[in-house]
């Protein structure tokens, strides 16, 4: 493992690279052998239920926690031993956006700019304006969402190469979230990378290139969002002029959950099966037809056996057995 990671960090390609990253607090294992990589210009959506280990991973990357074992490298720099150098190129939004109560937004910007030895107040002011944040109010008078916005402004103002975002959009209203997504896209367009943690896929699916799922401290899945979309199931419903049978449609490869009730059909099908399914359907006289894509969230949860409340439950279908291999392959491919 030692050899593997030094090889990786020498390549200089990966912005983030962790190998077997493990963190124990006393007897609790908060993070258990997490290996992941984030490439240049990539947004990595980091998903998991409460207490899964997202914040722990992020604080390890920021050098705020010392790994029990394993390593974390940011731009080839050791996250624990070279944290000061790492911080020069990283912007961080903590999960608990704590600010100095008595300082205004502008004073926060000034303080961070001084500590960074660079004047970023102009970009900071512009970002704040886009997020509709008043920089002249003391932090203690700001609402939860506005505190979050200030944390975002402080993270992006130095034009970092990597943004480490611990649930950055929690408490931010949907309109401002769109502005935030735009800011994030500009960041990646300029070659920047991001780690974006969240409880739900819906929050990151529009900005993430890949997603990783962490549960009980283990990285249980890494998936390219495009591939997930290709596997996403479509809900197909049709009503025919005459009665049909299950057998007619169940045979189409990939089609699942076929239900027939007299003249109506309901089933789900991945994108790849749509053409064949449609041909079978149109062989009959159709009265009504409906095809809707299931939210990615549902597909994802279907695969990884998480319910929407975010608490893990064991996988229930055959995808469960194929999962670990898939993850390995994906992780290998990403390196």
């Amino acid at each position: 493992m030692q050899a593997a990671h030094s090889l990786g960090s020498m390549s200089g390609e990966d912005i983030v690279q962790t190998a077997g990253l493990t963190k124990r607090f006393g007897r609790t294992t908060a993070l258990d052998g997490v290996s992941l990589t984030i490439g240049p210009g990539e947004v990595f959506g980091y998903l998991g239920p409460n207490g899964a280990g997202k914040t722990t991973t992020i604080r390890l990357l920021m050098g705020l926690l010392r790994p029990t074992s394993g390593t974390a490298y940011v731009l080839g720099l050791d996250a624990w031993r070279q944290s000061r150098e790492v911080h020069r190129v990283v912007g961080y939004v903590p999960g608990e956006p704590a600010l100095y109560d008595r300082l205004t937004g502008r004073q926060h910007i000034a303080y961070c700019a001084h500590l960074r030895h660079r004047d970023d107040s102009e970009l900071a002011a512009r970002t704040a304006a886009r997020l509709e944040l008043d920089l002249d109010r003391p932090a203690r008078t700001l609402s939860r969402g506005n505190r979050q916005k200030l944390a975002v402004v402080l993270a992006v103002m130095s034009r970092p190469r990597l943004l480490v975002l611990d649930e950055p959009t929690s408490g931010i209203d949907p309109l401002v979230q769109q502005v935030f997504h735009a800011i994030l896209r500009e960041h990646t367009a300029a070659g920047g990378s991001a780690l974006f943690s969240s409880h739900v896929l819906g929050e990151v699916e529009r900005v993430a290139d890949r997603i990783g799922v962490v549960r009980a401290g283990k990285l249980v899945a890494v998936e390219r969002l495009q591939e997930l979309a290709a596997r996403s199931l479509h809900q197909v419903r049709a009503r025919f002029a005459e009665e049909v049978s299950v057998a007619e449609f169940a045979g189409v490869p990939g089609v699942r959950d076929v239900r027939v009730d007299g003249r109506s059909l309901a089933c789900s099908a991945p994108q790849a099966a749509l053409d064949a399914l449609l041909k079978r359907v149109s062989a009959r006289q159709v009265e009504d037809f409906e095809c809707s894509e299931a939210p990615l969230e549902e597909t994802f949860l279907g695969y990884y056996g998480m319910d929407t409340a975010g608490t893990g439950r064991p996988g229930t279908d055959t995808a469960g057995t194929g999962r670990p291999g898939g993850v390995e392959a994906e992780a290998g491919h990403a390196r």
Partner: protein
Amino acid sequence: MLANVLLKTLRDQGRTLLAWSVSLALIVATYAAIWPSVQSQPSMSDFIDQMPEAFRSLFATSSADMSTPTGYIQVELLSFMGPIAVLIYSISAGAGAIGGEEDRHTMDLLLSNPVSRGRVVLDKFAAMVLGTFLLAAVMGVSLVLEGSMVDMVLPTDKVAAAMLHLALLGVVFGSLALALSAGTGHTGLSRGVPAVLAVLAYIVNALAPLVDVFDRIQKVSPFFQYIAHDPLRQGTAWDSVLVSAGTAAVLLALAVVGFRRRDVAG
């Protein structure tokens, strides 16, 4: 005031330091106001002389002659009130230095900037030292100025020496608080342990003439470095200054090492 961690910390302490300064000036003013009546009442010295020896050792220092300004200030201010005021400030400042920012969850924000943990500890230490010296200076200036108004004339150089030793006493316990704060992140513990140790150190130094065990360890007590040589009469004792500064330096080094090794509470 936001140019670095040191200035930011002093800025945060601005109100506290102002309040302490005003209080100290008022305390000194009170003693100065009472001075004329104490002076005209020689029985005060007799009263102290008649106290049981243990009491006298505890509440007054060595040879206290209440009929001279030096003896009066020695007993009234330097033995008790002065150290308490300075220690409360320095221990609070030291304990809050690192653990305080963690309690308020702002350490993540601070350390997400390219500042090393060592630098943060050094700046917090410097702020504590400056604050402590400021308070000692306020006390010294008040003594000289307010004293001169009521004919309580104190030699300026000796007052300065006493205040230097008083400030160093504060810095030693403030550094201990800082080391605990940096090493553990627990503000309560970092405040409590130095406070208890300060009381013990005080007792050891005060009762050394009476208790054999204390006599043997008296020189370890920071109160010994502070007051045993009678700075208001004898001036600065450089060996004591060195011992205090050395102790603070060791504690500062421990603080840096401690903070660099541990997890930051989020």
